[in-house]
């Protein structure tokens, strides 16, 4: 399988302002993101996620190691021609209108004005901002800014998407919409590097994850493999009282008992069901 993003032995230190000490933000970090996969970069605040993303985007010079984008060093600007980036807590030009901004990003990525406007309209529609195209960004809500961020990240049809907290500030219904868009992009063969604190979302959309803590890689691999717990449970579908009693009897002979659990909705599921019914 081809590798879209490769981080090799990345190390980055920052000099602390008031001390002659250095803070190691990332230490000997290595991971690979396969082409066409959705890769989750997880970790608590200060774990080195943003530093890693900035190194991938060539905005930071690593002290050691390197980042390769489809084989091209992230120090070369050619590497960024393949990337669409949604920054964390998106800050965009407040004085511009939504479509105007997406069109600007498209033109900076090589589209003509006509192409960028047409593509921008398409994407504003995709992210549900078709009615806000001509509105100043200063009037956008946080959720709308995230959607706008997704539109600008997609405008140049990049093969790799780096999404830093794409659902931060978005309501649960909007978060599901964004997750669906991410799923759609995955089906179209896009490679996605996703940073998110919404672990349920990461679990749903990601194929693989890397977990960072204090700049170190503490776990990485396929989600299914990482989430395997010690005990193995069997699921018994709803059956007659008689059948249940027979199973209990067999288990009792083994010195075990049947553990009964009732399916429980998550609060998120309930919220989505209720608000979608209202609509």
């Amino acid at each position, binding site marked *: 399988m081809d590798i879209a993003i490769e981080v090799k032995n990345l190390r980055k230190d920052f000099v602390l302002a008031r001390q002659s000490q250095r803070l190691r933000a990332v230490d000997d970090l290595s991971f690979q993101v396969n082409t066409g996969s959705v890769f989750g970069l997880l970790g608590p605040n200060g774990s080195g996620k943003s530093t890693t993303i900035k190194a991938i985007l060539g905005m*930071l010079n690593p002290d050691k190691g390197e980042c390769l984008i489809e084989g091209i060093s992230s120090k070369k600007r050619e590497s960024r021609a393949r990337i669409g980036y949604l*920054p964390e807590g998106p*800050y965009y030009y407040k004085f511009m209108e939504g479509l105007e901004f997406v069109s600007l990003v498209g033109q900076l990525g090589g589209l003509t004005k006509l192409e960028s406007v047409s593509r921008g309209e398409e994407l504003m529609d995709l992210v549900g901002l078709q009615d806000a195209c001509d509105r100043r960004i200063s009037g956008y809500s946080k959720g709308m800014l995230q959607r706008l961020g997704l539109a600008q990240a997609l405008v140049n049809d990049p093969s790799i998407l780096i999404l830093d907290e794409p659902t931060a500030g978005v309501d649960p219904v909007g978060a599901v919409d964004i997750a669906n868009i991410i799923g759609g992009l995955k089906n179209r063969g896009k490679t996605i590097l996703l940073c998110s604190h919404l672990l349920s979302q990461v679990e749903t959309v990601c194929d693989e994850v890397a977990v960072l803590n204090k700049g170190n890689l503490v776990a990485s691999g396929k989600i299914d493999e990482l989430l395997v717990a010690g005990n193995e449970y069997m699921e018994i579908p709803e059956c007659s009282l008689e059948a249940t009693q027979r199973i209990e009897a067999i288990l009792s002979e083994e010195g075990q008992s049947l553990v009964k659990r009732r399916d429980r909705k998550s609060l998120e599921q309930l919220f989505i069901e209720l608000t979608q019914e209202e609509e």
Partner: protein
Amino acid sequence: MNEKLNLSFWNMRHAWLIGKTSYLETVRMKLFYALLALSLFSLGCSFLLQEFNFGSDELKFIMDFGFGGMTFFGSILAIVTASQLFYGEIEDRTVFTILAKPIRRSEFVVGKFIGAWFCIVSFVLCLTLCLMLSLFVRESILMSQYPEVFSEGRLLNYLDVLGFGFMQCVRLGMLGSIVILFSSYATSSLFSIIIGVVTWILGQLQHLAVNAWGQYDSLFLNTILFIVSIALPNFHLYDFGDKIALGESASISVYLQLVGYGALYCALYLSLAVLSFREREL
């Protein structure tokens, strides 16, 4: 789609797009209109205060007022705009979205300069045209009141006023490029604004440093004077409003020399800004 992107060479289109967006930002800034209104107000005052012209010629008084406002408010605009456009972009984090595209840092720096300079040009052009209109109206009134003084036609050369305005664009462009240089490694916009103001003052006094260089025994002092003489442009060269007001026209060669001098310093400061910004971690 990305195949259309010119990745091999320096891309002027990128700089132009960034410049256009930056210009849009400046003309949507309240400061631009506030300074413009203040400048026009001061020009209007010169009309009303014609009785207090301290014995100097009335048209010269209006011209001095106009040139003074252009230089004073223009320098404030140049310093604040250049700082806001460059450092403001880092502070507001909007730079991440732009530099995540395949853009050279040099294209970004030049784009920001284009945006700031176009803003300066718009401001100076507005003031110059208003000043020319004021002078024309006042001169026409005086011509009807004192036809004997104007027996040989109009006294003022309006092309000189326009020329002075253009030279201020060059001078303020240099100031803007210095502020961009300091903003490229600044850690606060206040720092780049303060340095901009200090540079503006030192640049006005640069000719004194040139004259004083070599006249002191202290090596330290001579070194400082030498650095000031070389590193800072002589802004005083562009203060030829008095001569215009007295009816002296500057020759084309003087204009060309001033443009060349300004372009050279802008290129120097922007090159240093590129070197500094290329190494900056965001």
